[in-house]
């Protein structure tokens, strides 16, 4: 028997850590989705297709829009919100959150330029002509951006990958939370973000050829995500006592049903099976698997954030 009594009952830490609530998984999901969209938008610009659906030329604008929504949730999570500017008065090299703050800031101009050059020329010209103020400046910026289209595309890919990995590393560096303390979480969240982005594109009115390409890509990404998820669990399950206890939260513990139902079956297995059947029978990739991928991606963040806070380094009794 080992009975413990503590007189401490501080909010956020007792009886177990619960510092982060809905705002954080919402932000992590939107951050991952934005990261995936940036990588896909960059790759798409590098391929420079002659003809694209109107939806695909306008979708890069969703990067700054969704990022703003995500950052709003991140800001709402802060206890001392009016001190948020402090993130940008320093750079703390050991803090993933500090890296993330600066990455987010760099994402904005790059994503806006990429979104601008992705639009059809006629649309850009119409906007420049109709701009009530600053039309000349807009025109000069456009010339500047068009001359650097490939550089901007590569920046979009690199920043997108950094953003996607950071959302996982943010949790992964917390040694005190064994469920999170894994280097796999970064690539896992990036793969999930890429898959969510592909699914997000499939929800829009794009051409059949684009739909087939993105559907195939999504299928591959789901398989990679599934592999990383399995490796994460294997690493936890084969670790020390604290890691094994953390894995137990998803393998027999309180988060097991939600994890296997929402993340594995609904978010990975069902859409990949549906997309495989679609590909095998030459069908147009539909929207239902895409919706399931997005819901699964959100459930993954939600469950990892909540379950991770329940995990802790196990103490050996001091009395032995």
């Amino acid at each position, binding site marked *: *028997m*080992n*009975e*413990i*009594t*503590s*007189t*401490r009952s*501080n*909010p*956020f*830490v*007792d009886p177990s*850590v619960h*510092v*982060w609530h809905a705002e954080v998984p919402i932000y992590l999901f939107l951050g991952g989705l934005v990261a995936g969209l940036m990588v896909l938008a960059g790759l798409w610009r590098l391929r420079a297709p002659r003809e694209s659906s109107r939806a695909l030329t306008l979708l890069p604008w969703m990067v700054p829009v969704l990022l703003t929504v995500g950052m709003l949730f991140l800001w709402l*999570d*802060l*206890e*001392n*919100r009016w*001190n*948020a500017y*402090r*993130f940008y*008065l*320093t750079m*703390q090299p*050991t*803090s*993933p*959150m*500090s890296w*993330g*703050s600066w990455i987010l800031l760099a994402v904005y101009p790059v994503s806006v330029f990429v979104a601008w050059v992705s639009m059809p020329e006629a649309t850009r010209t119409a906007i420049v002509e109709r701009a009530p103020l600053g039309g000349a400046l807009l025109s000069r910026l456009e010339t500047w951006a068009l001359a650097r289209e490939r550089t901007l595309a590569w920046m979009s890919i690199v920043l997108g990958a950094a953003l996607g990995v950071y959302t996982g590393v943010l949790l992964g*560096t*917390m*040694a*005190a*939370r064994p469920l999170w303390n894994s280097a796999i979480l970064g690539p896992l969240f990036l793969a999930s973000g890429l898959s969510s982005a592909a699914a997000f594109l499939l929800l829009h009115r794009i051409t059949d050829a684009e739909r087939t390409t993105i559907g195939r890509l999504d299928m591959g990404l789901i398989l990679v995500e599934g592999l990383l998820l399995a490796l994460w669990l294997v690493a936890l399950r084969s670790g*020390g006592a*604290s890691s094994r206890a953390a894995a137990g939260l998803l393998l027999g513990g309180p988060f097991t049903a939600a994890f296997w139902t929402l993340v594995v079956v609904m978010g990975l297995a069902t859409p990949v099976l549906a997309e495989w059947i679609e590909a095998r029978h030459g069908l147009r990739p539909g929207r239902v698997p895409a919706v399931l991928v997005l819901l699964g991606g959100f459930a993954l963040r939600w469950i990892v954030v909540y379950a991770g*806070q329940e995990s*802790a*380094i196990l*103490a050996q*009794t*001091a*009395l*032995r």
Partner: protein
Amino acid sequence: MKGPSYGMVLDTRTCVGCSACVIACKTENDVPDGVTRNWIFTEVSGTYPDLSMSIRSERCNHCENAPCVAVCPTGASYYGAGGTVKVDADKCTGCKACIAACPYGARFVDPRTDTVDKCTFCLHRLENGTPTTACQEICPTQSIYFGDLNDPESDVSRLLASRASYTLLPDAGTRPKHFFLR
């Protein structure tokens, strides 16, 4: 010559868990209701009738390798005088990364300022010439010792040299500077 490295030693054989240290800390540091910088931890182990009990007065461990300092995105958590771990409330955004990163649950959000707070080893007293912490001064069984771990003549160094001791969660790799005498 090395500078001071402040640490704390608690004698688990004499601590009776009276909570006087908790009250003294609240008074000295104006800690608001509902939160606490230190607390009493009681652990009973064994199988009846062979039971043993350990009582500990616990607080921030002022780790040498503090994860709260490493994860802080604004530099609000930092190493202060004598290697103590401090919080600069002016820089704190209340992101709570430090609370999640601390394996000891030593931090909380002050509901009055919405910034993170924790034990300071009463450094303000030391700066004013009082070499004891409030919890140490009030302790009726003299179980709490505070001092310079780099000074071989300090109480804390002598106790650690003469008695067996342990730190909490050594596997966490945080190198705590709060020691417990067996």
